[in-house]
């Protein structure tokens, strides 16, 4: 659940930015001849509603109905007493608490006479909610409008960019402040890292660790004891006001590994996409002489997902927008060890 700082700051997220987002979505709705638009949210898939309203539920779920005109309606099963709090941290839209949000949405759709209703990620929309809406608003047709939403959202606006950079700073600073090389207790290291991020105002913080970079294996949760190898890595994912970034660093205990890792880190810090350059090309260029690139992926917000793979070494992911900030995850083979890192790249900023 989200249990860190949740507060709205008009400087960081001006109402005008949200109104502009709403106008962009409505323009797409007009092109697609949609009478209304529905976006689902919960803590795992909160990015769509957060982009529209500035709000992520700390728990439970909700639905935003964007009518053709008027304020968006946020219907949630969170309790009635929480509505006042939601309104204080949700700068756009009206809040209605109800045990059955989809029934309320259906009622609104029926009242408005809406027929063509766009849904973000219809395939992944909760089936029970869809059935309730279709039963309560006969004549309504649910249409997958994921592409329309993506088009409205294309190009990260300055407000979201600012929040992304703040999330990134929290992730980076929490890692930078660690005396990691001397650490013996992985759990204590994770705790210190998380405390730093939360004291800085992180809304949420997920930390995973790769305890031994001398062996195969991925980033693990710190929910059981781990023993550090001679090199290890920490990956910090931070949400700030509903917007996510990640940072990961590798740490070597021996001088040779420390030197090789420092070289890789310096190269990674220099990475920027040249005009027309691919990510694979840029990675090969900056890491030439450091080590062999074994794997990489780029992540950006997509639909209801706060971060989703949009480009990868195997070419499976798609949808990358090179003009907007993105998280780049990299794995190199360095001095007989794996070197894992992640950082935010913010083109044009």
């Amino acid at each position, binding site marked *: *659940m989200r*249990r*860190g*700082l*949740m*507060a709205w700051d008009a400087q960081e997220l001006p109402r005008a930015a949200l109104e502009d987002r709403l106008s962009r979505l409505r323009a797409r709705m007009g092109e697609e001849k949609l009478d209304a638009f529905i976006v689902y949210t*919960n*803590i*795992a*898939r909160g990015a769509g509603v957060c982009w529209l309203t500035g709000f992520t539920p*700390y*728990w439970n*779920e909700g639905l935003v109905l964007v009518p053709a005109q008027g304020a968006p309606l946020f219907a949630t099963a969170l*309790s*009635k*007493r*929480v509505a*006042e*709090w939601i309104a204080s*941290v949700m700068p756009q839209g009206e809040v209605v608490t109800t045990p059955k949000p989809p029934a309320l949405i259906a009622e609104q759709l029926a009242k408005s006479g809406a027929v063509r209703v766009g849904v973000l990620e*219809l*395939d*992944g*929309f*909760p*089936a*029970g*909610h*869809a059935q309730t809406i279709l039963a309560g608003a006969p004549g309504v047709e*649910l249409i997958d409008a994921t592409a329309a939403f993506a088009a409205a959202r294309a190009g990260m606006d300055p407000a979201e960019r600012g929040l992304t950079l703040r999330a990134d700073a929290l992730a980076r600073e929490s890692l930078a402040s660690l005396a990691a090389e001397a650490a013996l*207790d992985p*759990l204590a290291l*994770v*705790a*210190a890292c*998380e*405390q730093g991020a*939360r*004291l800085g*105002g992180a*809304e949420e*913080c*997920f*930390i*995973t660790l790769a305890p031994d970079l001398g062996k195969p294996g*991925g*980033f*693990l*949760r*710190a*929910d059981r004891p781990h023993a550090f190898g001679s090199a290890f890595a920490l*990956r910090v*994912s931070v949400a700030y006001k509903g917007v996510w970034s990640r940072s990961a660093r590798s740490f070597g205990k021996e001088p040779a590994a420390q030197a090789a890792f420092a070289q890789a880190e310096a190269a990674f810090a220099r990475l920027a996409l040249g005009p027309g350059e691919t990510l694979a090309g840029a990675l090969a260029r900056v890491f030439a002489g450091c080590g062999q690139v074994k794997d990489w*992926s780029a992540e950006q917000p997509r639909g209801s997902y706060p*971060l*989703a*793979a949009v480009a*990868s070494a195997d070419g*499976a*992911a798609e949808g990358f927008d090179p003009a907007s900030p993105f998280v780049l995850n990299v794995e190199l083979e360095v001095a007989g060890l794996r070197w894992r890192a992640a950082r935010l790249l913010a083109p044009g900023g």
Partner: protein
Amino acid sequence: MTTAAFAARQGALAEAMKREGVDLLLLFGNNWHADHLRYAVDFGIQEGQGIALVHPDGSASLLLDDPAECERARSEGLSCDVVFAPALVREAKARLGRSGNRTIAAAPFHLLPYGLLHGDSDLRVNDGAKIVERLLMTKLEAEIACVRRAAQLADEGYAVFRAAARPGRKDYELIAEIEAFFRTKGVPENFMIIGVGGQEVRGMAPPGGKILKAGDMVTTELTPCFEGYYAQICRTLVVGEANEAQKRAFNVYLEAMVAGIATTKAGVTAASVAKAENDVFRKYGLGEYTTSEYTRVRGHGMGLFPDQKPQILEDVEIPLQAGMTIIVHPNTYHPEVGYLVLGDSVIVREGGCENLCGTPRELFSVQ
């Protein structure tokens, strides 16, 4: 969890599938509703979404749409087959299609992806609640051991919370300290909300940056988990010395919680426990504050989900069963002092219940 404990859980699931005549069970989850996946394949999903396809012999496939989660699942050495499925719904549907003419059940049914049940070839999938819900509510002894450990962590966490609460600190700084403590104990998740202030406070929410000052009541519910199992504690503290109204109000909540816990035993309904708590409020002329205007529930079940059935409400006729783990918390708004909380986790037993929380039932005072 230990191999033996997980095997016991797999056995219980297989038995329930057999009893309901189900050949294939589809379980869906994400970081909000992680319980079904955790039960069947022992994976605590953090990002993205996942689907487990479980066979009666205990074998399973776990489909995950997040590549890092997939890598983690593989590194954790799960006993099931782990599949990276960026097109989660399409992959699951294809696998169900290939499974032939079988009886398929799925849960949690209302949250299943729409695309799974609809499209070119609609699949016939039954609601699997009957199979899973009872297992989630009524725990095996191995599961109860995890809840018991989580309750100990909740006690330890509240001691940290008390030490962290002092005038001048921001509410989210307290959370930062608690979370750091829990990470050192290997607790990956904690359900926690907080209230800071006086009569104007009507409930708890995530922290908003309030600064603690003398006279404030600070309410919280801490819900750490161990091996995926949650236990909760609710307590209230006062910054400085509690005033007479706060002490008086607290005594009502204490009496209500004790009455609720005294009523809790196998065979009684959730409604009976709620009534016992609410009768105390009614006795003091505070009956209005037991309604949904002021409070959500008078307690609830806990396990792999921190807020599971049964809800402790006067209209919930679910009988309590031995092995259920619930929290009894008469949390509500008090017209004189504001929102106040007090609650202990218990295990329902035949003839009574076993209290899991050791933190004194006091209105604490911090300087």
